[in-house]
């Protein structure tokens, strides 16, 4: 019996398998090289973006700057730096516009209960640039608007706001405890933020979409107007309760004749925060770094220091 040739079939099979293995190795090496070089470009772009931030931080904050793009080296450059200058700006001043309008709503970085650093936020009501004790007053209106709460949060938020003021040679605190959950508010002796209109607070949680220093159509669950504020306001401190995260914004109420004039002292919050966004480019890769700079931030335990009978030693 003659045996037909099968060896060639076996050989072809073996070679096909070797081909498949070889192709996959080559493909992996090509993908590896491409990924490594993209990651390298990304690092260069990120370094360039950070360089842009550093440059902007050195500039004076009194005016908004427009920066031309500049090269860091042959392979990376800073494409764009956006520097808001100090926020919220005072209506009618240079580069601010908003003449005959209220001061912009100052939006702070979101409150985050899980992070010690951002569990408390603060807004300066006094002039923090003058080193006297107490600092000179800046905002002298008797009411203040506060926007807070994440719109789609599963756990309804509550917030503790402390207004620090100075009277009779001492710093005092006027607290506001607001809860968007009506039944929980009653049980905890909080103010029902979803519906209240008293001499001290007017509040609702009907979801507000407003323009702030962080952008347009920013969403907040509740808006609370704190009223009957005492004189010599110093500082606003806010602490989030129950929810894990919440946006937070404060606005001067600009009541009465408070629109449009930069010389109308007492109507506005002192410009105190600054947002810088820097874009670095390397090859086809772009990286963007954004920083939020606050002025003279007091530590999270500041509220406890105010209440402490003796000195707090850390």
């Amino acid at each position, binding site marked *: 019996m*003659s045996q037909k040739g099968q060896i*060639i079939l076996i050989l*072809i099979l073996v*070679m*096909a398998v*070797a*081909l498949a293995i*070889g*192709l996959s*190795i*080559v493909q*992996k*090496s*090509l993908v*590896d*090289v491409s*990924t*490594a*070089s993209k*990651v*390298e470009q990304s*690092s*260069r772009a990120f*370094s*360039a973006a*950070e*360089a842009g*931030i*550093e*440059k902007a*931080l*050195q*500039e004076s904050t009194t005016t908004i700057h427009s920066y031309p793009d*500049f090269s*860091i*080296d042959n*392979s*990376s450059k800073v494409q764009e730096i956006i520097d808001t200058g100090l926020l919220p700006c005072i209506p009618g001043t240079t580069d601010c516009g908003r003449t005959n309008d209220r001061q912009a709503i100052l939006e702070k970085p979101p409150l985050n209960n899980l992070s010690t650093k951002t569990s408390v936020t603060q807004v300066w009501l006094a002039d923090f640039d003058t080193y006297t004790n107490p600092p000179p007053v800046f905002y002298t209106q008797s009411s203040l608007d506060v926007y807070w709460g994440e719109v789609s949060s599963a756990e309804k938020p509550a917030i503790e706001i402390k207004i620090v003021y100075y009277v009779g040679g001492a710093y005092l605190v006027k607290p506001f405890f607001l809860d968007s959950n009506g039944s929980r508010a009653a049980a905890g002796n909080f103010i029902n933020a979803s519906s209240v209109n008293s001499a001290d607070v007017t509040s609702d949680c009907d979801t507000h979409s407003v323009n702030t220093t962080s952008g347009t159509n920013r969403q907040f669950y509740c808006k609370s107007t704190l009223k009957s504020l005492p004189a010599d306001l110093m500082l606003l401190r806010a602490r989030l309760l129950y929810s894990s995260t919440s946006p937070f914004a404060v606005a001067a109420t600009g009541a009465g004749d408070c629109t449009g004039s930069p010389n109308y002292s007492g109507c506005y919050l002192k410009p105190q925060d600054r947002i810088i966004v820097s874009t670095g480019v390397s090859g086809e890769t772009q990286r963007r770094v954004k*920083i939020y700079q606050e002025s003279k931030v007091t530590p999270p335990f500041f509220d406890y220091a105010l209440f402490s009978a003796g000195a707090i030693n850390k």
Partner: protein
Amino acid sequence: MKNEHGVSLTESLLVISLVGIIVILLANLPNAFGLITKSKHISLAREIAAKQIEDKRAISFANLTNDNSQIADSRMSLLPDSFGTVLVEDCLPQICANGENIKQITATINWQDNAKMQTISLKTFIGEGGINQ
């Protein structure tokens, strides 16, 4: 019935082309392994350079002195024939025209891959009162 011997033309051409492709592939296989190693080295060098920059950011601006120091990272031994430097110098006048307090940091790492010199360089600024300061 007649017995057919031999191989047809199509079969031969197919096998020859298949063998040819496989030979080319296997000849380039060592290159492929070399590329995988090279990309590993590029990633590692990038990590080392980024860490050097972060270390400099952790130093307060007042303590940053202009110098060109050698990188002392234990991972440098994983790169063949490697040598790295971190250069701290004042920001160039063309960029920092207003005499800002900014230092330029350049982390450079060189190593050999297949007897060829490879380089990675990361450059950034550190300013007084800046990031991490």
